[in-house]
C-alpha cells in the first residue's frame, strides 16, 4: 500500500485533487514534444471533465488516453496547420461534475490558457459551460448528445452517441438469442440513466422482447443493491438490463445477481473494469455478458474501416502506463475526438473553432472511430451535431471482452426511429422537453 500511495502521489496526485493549475502543468510536462517546435507553434486543447469525484471514471481515463495520443502526435511531427507543424498540449481542468466549476473552468481555459477546443464529458456540467460557449463561440465536444439542442451550435458529439448505440446490443441479442423473451431494467435516476432507459425500452420493443415490469429507478446515492436485485429477478426474467449504470453500480449489482442465483442474460451499456466483476463473481457467471465498449487490444479493431490510429498499440501503451484493469469506456474516446479535431484543423488550415467545425462537418459525413459516419441528430436533438455510424457489440467470453460485431445505428433508427422518439418523449428526454 505504501508503494501504491507513493506511486499514486508521484504520478497521479497532480491530476486528481490538486486543481487545475497543477493538473495543467503536469499534463503539459508529460507531453512536451520530443520534436522541436517553434515556441509559438503550440495548439492548446482544453480537457474539462471530472477528474475527481464519483464520475471521475468517465473523465480521468480519457485524459490519460489523451496524454498518450498527444505524445504520439508530437513525436510524429505534430499537427500540420496551414503548412506549419504545431505541437499539441492538453490543459486539464477538473470540473468535479459540477456545473459551476465547469463554467469557471471553461472561462479559465479560454481566457487564461488560450485553448482552441474544449472536450467535456457533458451531462450535468454542460449547462454550466454553455453560456461561455455562447459568448465566446468556442468549439466544445461532449460524450453525451443529449446535451445537444438547436441552440448549441458550437457543441458537437463526435464520438459517443450515448445512449442511442445501446440499441445495437439489444438488436444483436434478439438476433442471436431469439429464445430470450422477457427483460427487466434498473437505472439510476439521473441525466445519464433516464435517456438510456428510454433507448433500451425502444430497443426491446423493436426486438419483440417484453418488459416484465417498469424500469426500476434507484437513487444515485444507493450503496446496497440487494433490494434492487431481489425485485429485478423476482419474476425470473430472461434478460436483466443494467442501463447506463456507473461502474460503482454495475459491480455490486452483478455481484448481487450472482449471489442471488440469477442465471439469465445480462446486458449493460458499460462494464468498466470488468475483470474485477469476474473476480467478484465467476467466469461462468460473466460468460456472455453483453455491453458496448471494447478493449482496444481486440483484433477486430485492426480492420481497415476503423479510423482509430493503431488501436492495439494504444491499448498496450495505456495498459503499460496505467494498468490493464484501469482501461475504461472513455479511455479511447477523447483521443478519438482529437483524431477528428486534428483532421478538421489540418483540413481547415486553422485551429480557430469556427473554421475547424466547418471543416469537420463538410459534406455531412466524417470519419468516426468505428467507420464512416453521418452528422445526424435533428430528429432527436434538434441539430445535426452528432456523428453517428457503426458501434460494436462486445461480449465477455472466457473472462475477456470480445467484439462480436459492428452494427449500424442509422440503419436501426431508419426502421425504429418512431419508437425511440415515443419513449424519449415519455421520459421527457426530447430536446424540446429538456429545461
Amino acid at each position, binding site marked *: 500500500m505504501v508503494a501504491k500511495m507513493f506511486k499514486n502521489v508521484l504520478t497521479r496526485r497532480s491530476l*486528481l*485533487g490538486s486543481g487545475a493549475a497543477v493538473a495543467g502543468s503536469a499534463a503539459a510536462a508529460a507531453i512536451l514534444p520530443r520534436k522541436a517546435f517553434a515556441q509559438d507553434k503550440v495548439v492548446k486543447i482544453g480537457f474539462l471533465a471530472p477528474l475527481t469525484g464519483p464520475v471521475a471514471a468517465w473523465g480521468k481515463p480519457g485524459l490519460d488516453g489523451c496524454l498518450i495520443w498527444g505524445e504520439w502526435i508530437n513525436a510524429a511531427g505534430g499537427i500540420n496547420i496551414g503548412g506549419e507543424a504545431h505541437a499539441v498540449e492538453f490543459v486539464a481542468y477538473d470540473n468535479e461534475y459540477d456545473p459551476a466549476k465547469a463554467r469557471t473552468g471553461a472561462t479559465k481555459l479560454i481566457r487564461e490558457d488560450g485553448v482552441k477546443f474544449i472536450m467535456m464529458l457533458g451531462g450535468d456540467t454542460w449547462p454550466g459551460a454553455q453560456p461561455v460557449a455562447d459568448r465566446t463561440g468556442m468549439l466544445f465536444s461532449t460524450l453525451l448528445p443529449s446535451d445537444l439542442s438547436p441552440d448549441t451550435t458550437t457543441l458537437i458529439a463526435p464520438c459517443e452517441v450515448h445512449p442511442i448505440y445501446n440499441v445495437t446490443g439489444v438488436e444483436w441479442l434478439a438476433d442471436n438469442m431469439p429464445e430470450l423473451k422477457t427483460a427487466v431494467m434498473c437505472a439510476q435516476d439521473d441525466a445519464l440513466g433516464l435517456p438510456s432507459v428510454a433507448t433500451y425500452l425502444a430497443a426491446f420493443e423493436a426486438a419483440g422482447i417484453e418488459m416484465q415490469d417498469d424500469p426500476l*429507478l*434507484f437513487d444515485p446515492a444507493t450503496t446496497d443493491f*440487494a*433490494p434492487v436485485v431481489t425485485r429485478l429477478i*423476482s419474476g425470473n426474467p430472461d434478460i436483466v438490463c443494467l442501463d447506463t449504470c456507473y461502474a460503482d453500480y454495475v459491480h*455490486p449489482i452483478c455481484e448481487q445477481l450472482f449471489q*442471488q442465483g440469477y442465471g439469465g442474460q445480462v446486458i449493460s451499456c458499460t462494464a468498466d473494469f470488468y475483470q474485477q466483476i469476474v473476480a467478484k463473481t465467476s467466469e461462468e457467471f460473466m460468460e456472455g455478458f453483453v455491453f458496448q465498449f471494447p478493449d482496444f487490444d481486440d483484433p477486430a479493431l485492426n480492420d481497415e474501416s476503423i479510423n482509430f490510429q493503431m488501436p492495439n498499440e494504444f491499448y498496450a501503451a495505456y495498459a503499460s502506463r496505467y494498468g490493464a484493469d484501469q482501461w475504461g469506456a472513455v479511455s479511447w474516446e477523447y483521443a478519438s475526438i482529437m483524431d477528428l479535431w486534428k483532421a478538421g484543423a489540418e483540413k481547415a488550415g486553422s485551429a480557430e473553432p469556427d473554421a475547424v467545425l466547418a471543416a469537420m462537418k463538410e459534406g455531412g459525413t466524417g470519419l468516426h472511430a468505428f467507420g464512416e459516419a453521418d452528422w445526424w441528430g435533428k430528429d432527436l436533438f434538434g441539430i445535426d451535431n452528432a456523428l453517428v455510424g457503426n458501434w460494436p457489440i462486445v461480449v465477455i467470453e472466457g473472462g475477456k471482452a470480445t467484439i462480436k460485431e459492428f452494427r449500424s445505428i442509422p440503419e436501426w433508427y431508419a426502421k425504429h426511429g418512431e419508437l425511440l422518439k415515443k419513449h424519449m418523449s415519455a421520459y421527457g428526454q426530447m430536446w424540446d422537453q429538456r429545461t
Partner: protein
Amino acid sequence: MVELLAQTGLNALYAASYTALVAVGLVLIFGVMGVINFAHGELFMLGAYAIVAVYADWNLPYLVAVAVGMAFVGTVGLGMERAFFRPLRDNPLGGLVASIGFLMILQALVSMGFGVRMEHVPPVTQEVIVITERVRLPVFRLAVILAAVVLLAGLWAFLKKTRFGWALRASAQDPEAAALQGISINQTARIAMFIGAALAGVAGALTAPLISVNPHMGHSVIVTAFIVIIVGGIGSLEGAVIVAVAYAFVHTFVTTFFDGVIADIVGLLLLLIVLIVKPTGLFGSTDRA
C-alpha cells in the same frame, strides 16, 4: 410472494446492521460531546480503505484487516477529539464546521493516496446459504449481521455494566454534574470519540467487500445516519438502534416493492412527520445516553 418477502427481510436485516453501527457511533459522539460530526461518513470510508490496504493490497487475513481498520479509525477519532472538538468544546457550531472541513481533508487525502476510482476488494467468501431457490443468504452478509449484533451488545454491556460506561452516560446527561463528581470530561470525550469512530470504521470495514469503495462513499451513509438519529431522538442509543432497524426495513421493502427513489422520499417523509409530531425524536429525552 412469500419467498420475495423472506428475501427482502434478509436484505433489510443486513441494511439494518451496518446502519445501526454507523448511527450509534454518531449518537454516542453527540451524546457525550454535543458535536454533530459531519465527518462520520468519512470515518466509515476510512474503515473501508483499511480493508483495501490491509486485506486487498497486503493480503493479510480479513479479520486482521477489520481489527486494524477499527483501531485505526478509532485513533483518527481520538485525533479529531484532541485537535478539533476539545478546543471548540464551548462552540458546537465550530465543531460542526471543523468536522465538515475535516471530511474534505480526508476525502482529498484518500484520493491522493489511492486514486479516485473505486477500489477492488476481493470477496471474503462466495458461499451462499440456499434456503429455497429464491431465498438466499450470502454467508458474508450473515457474518456482517452477526458482527453488528455482537458489537452493539458489547457496547450496551460496556455502557451499562462498566465504570467507564457509567461515566460516559453521566457526562452525556449532565457534564457539569459529572465533572463535580470527579469524572474527567476529557477522558469521557476521548472514549466516546474512539468508540464512535471505531464503530463507523468497523461498519466500513465489514461492508467494504460488498459495496463500491471510493473516496466519496461516506456521503450516502451519513445522510441515512442523520435521518436515523433525528427520528430516533438525537442522543438516544436505543432510539438509534430501533430506528435503524425500522428505517432499513421500510427503505428495503419500499425499494423492492416500489423503487429506490420512492423509498428515499418515504424516509424523508417519516423524518418530517416525526419532526412535526415529536421534535425531540421518537426516543429523545433529556437522558441522552
